[in-house]
C-alpha cells in the first residue's frame, strides 16, 4: 500500500469515527442534571404560584415575576453550560475535537427551531403592535407601554416542548435512534399539552424537560454507553 493511500484511509477512518462518536456523545449525565434542575424549578415555581398553570405567573407581583424569570433563565443557563462542558470533556477524553463537523452540524440543526421558539415566546409574552414598535425605533421615538401578556400565554410551554422536540429530532438525525425517540416524546407530549393540558404548564415542564430528560440520561448511561470504550 502506498503512503498516500494509507493517509486517505486514515482520514476516512477518522471521519467515520468522529461521526460515530456522536453516539457515545449523547448527553447522559448532563440530561439527568438538566432534568433534575427542571423538576426543582417546577417545584419552586409551584410553591410560589400555588397553581400548575404556568401562564398564571403573569398575574404575580412584578418582584416575584422577576425572581421567577431569573430562576428559569438561571436554570436554563446552568443546564446548557454544564451540558456543553461535560460533553466537551467527554469528547476530549475520547480523543476528538468537541467542535468536529458532526457536532457543529448537530448544534446548527437545533438553531432554527430555537429561533422559532424564541419568536413565539416573545409574541406570547408581549402582545404589542410590533409594526408601531419598529416604526418608533426607526424614528428614534420613545415608546411607552405597560406590559400586557399576550393572548394564549398558556400555550408557551407546549410550544417550547414541540420546538425543542423538533430541534432534538434534527440534531438526532446525526446520531442513533434514542434522541429521536426523545424528540417524538417531546412533540407528542407538547401536542397533547397544547390540546388538553395547556393550563398545566408546570406539570408539562416537570414531565418533559424534567422526567423525559432524566429517563433519557439513564437510558444513555445504562444502556447505550455501557461498555463503550472510554
Amino acid at each position, binding site marked *: 500500500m502506498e*503512503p498516500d493511500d*494509507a493517509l486517505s*484511509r486514515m482520514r476516512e*477512518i477518522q471521519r467515520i469515527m468522529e*461521526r*460515530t*462518536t456522536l*453516539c457515545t456523545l449523547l448527553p447522559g449525565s448532563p440530561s439527568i442534571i438538566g432534568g433534575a434542575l427542571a423538576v426543582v424549578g417546577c417545584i419552586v415555581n409551584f410553591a410560589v404560584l400555588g397553581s400548575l398553570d404556568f401562564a398564571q405567573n403573569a398575574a404575580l407581583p412584578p418582584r416575584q415575576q422577576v425572581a421567577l424569570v431569573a430562576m428559569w433563565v438561571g436554570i436554563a443557563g446552568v443546564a446548557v453550560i454544564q451540558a456543553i462542558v461535560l460533553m466537551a470533556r467527554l469528547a476530549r477524553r475520547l480523543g476528538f475535537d468537541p467542535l468536529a463537523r458532526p457536532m457543529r452540524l448537530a448544534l446548527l440543526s437545533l438553531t432554527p427551531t430555537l429561533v422559532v421558539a424564541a419568536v413565539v415566546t416573545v409574541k406570547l409574552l408581549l402582545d404589542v403592535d410590533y409594526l408601531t414598535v419598529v416604526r418608533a425605533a426607526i424614528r428614534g421615538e420613545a415608546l411607552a407601554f405597560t406590559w400586557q401578556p399576550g393572548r394564549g400565554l398558556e400555550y408557551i410551554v407546549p410550544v417550547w416542548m414541540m420546538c425543542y422536540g423538533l430541534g432534538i429530532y434534527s440534531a438526532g438525525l446525526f446520531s*442513533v435512534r434514542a434522541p429521536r425517540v426523545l424528540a417524538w416524546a417531546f412533540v407528542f407530549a407538547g401536542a397533547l399539552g397544547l390540546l388538553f393540558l395547556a393550563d398545566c404548564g408546570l406539570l408539562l415542564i416537570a414531565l418533559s424537560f424534567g422526567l423525559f430528560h432524566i429517563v433519557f440520561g439513564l437510558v444513555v448511561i445504562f444502556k447505550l454507553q455501557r461498555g463503550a*470504550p472510554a
Partner: protein
Amino acid sequence: MNGPVTPEDIDPIIHERVRLAIVSTLAVVAEMSFNELKQGLSLTDGNLSVHARTLEEAGYLEIEKTFRGRKPHTTMRLTPKGRKAFQRYLATLQRIIARGRKGAR
C-alpha cells in the same frame, strides 16, 4: 514493528472498505443495531449482512439476534480480538505513512 511493511502485515479482513467502515464505526461505540449501522454507513441489508458475516467468521464481530416484541432485532459489537485487529491495522497505516514521510525528506 519498525521494519518495512509487507503485504502480509495488512489484515485483508479489515482492509476491505466496507468492513473497515463497519469496524471503524463499532470501534467507538459499545454496540449498534443492524439498522443504525446500515443507515449510518448507507449500506443495503445484503451488503451489511455479507460483510458482517465475514467479520463474525474472523472472530472480530459479535452478532446478537433477539426479538423486540415480534420484531427481530440484531445488535453488533466488536470483540476484543476485533478491537486488537483494528488497532494493529491503524498501527500498520501509521507505519506506511511514516515511511512515506521519511522517503519524502
